[in-house]
């Protein structure tokens, strides 16, 4: 047990070192370069939003359009496209009932338009929240997607 935890710890620290050195070598970026591990591995929607944006308060918005199937036959590949007319700083896609709801988070610069699409895995029928950060506030649109065959684990 001790050996196992030691190995785990050493693996974790070596990846940290690798990440740090990559950060140093990468060109200066306007975005926070780190992968938001706390947000993406969080187990609830609120925890994920708090980790990513520091708040989970959201306003429903008509300015966000979700293009996704109402029913997905295969939960392993569910296409989700988000279009927003808000000046978006970041867009997050969360499948509420996934083991880790935050599937993807994109940070957008000034040259980027308010469009993001990604194909996600869904374990079961669940509401999918698309959260847009604009002017420091969070706006969301939600669509329920029915899944007949799950795509998480097996």
């Amino acid at each position: 047990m001790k050996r196992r935890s030691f190995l785990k710890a050493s693996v974790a620290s070596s990846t940290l070192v690798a990440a740090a050195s990559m950060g140093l070598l990468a060109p200066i970026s306007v975005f926070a370069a780190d992968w938001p591990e706390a947000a993406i591995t969080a187990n609830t929607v609120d925890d994920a939003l708090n980790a990513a944006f520091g708040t989970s308060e959201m306003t429903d918005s008509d300015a966000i359009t979700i293009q996704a199937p109402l029913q997905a036959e295969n939960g392993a590949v569910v296409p989700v496209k988000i279009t927003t007319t808000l000046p978006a700083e970041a867009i997050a896609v969360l499948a509420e009932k996934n083991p880790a709801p935050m599937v993807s988070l994109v940070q957008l610069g000034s040259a980027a338009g308010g469009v993001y699409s990604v194909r996600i895995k869904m374990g079961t029928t669940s509401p999918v929240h698309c959260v847009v950060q604009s002017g420091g506030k969070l706006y969301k649109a939600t669509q329920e997607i029915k899944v007949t065959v799950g795509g998480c684990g097996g």
Partner: protein
Amino acid sequence: MATKMKIKAGKSGGHDVLVLAKHPMETGLRKDAKTGEKVPEHFITTMKFSLNGEEFAQAHLGPGVSANPLVTTNLTSAKSGDTVSVSWVDNKGESDSAEATVS
């Protein structure tokens, strides 16, 4: 690990940047059918999009993104001849990149 990129006119204006990366995107939850052991997680963590060398979007992915991720972002004011590039890195430190020119 092949990565493809396509640029086309966006439906809501600007140019859509489509990236298709070949990647297993293992969640770490799936079990191997033969051995019954869990397949270790292996997924793309970050994709960086640049226009003429200047970053305009950074997409963080988790294991919940489907295998062979197809990710689309949009550029509001790209001009013909501009160079768009994407590079990604995964949780094992593997990486790949692709480049395309706006037509």
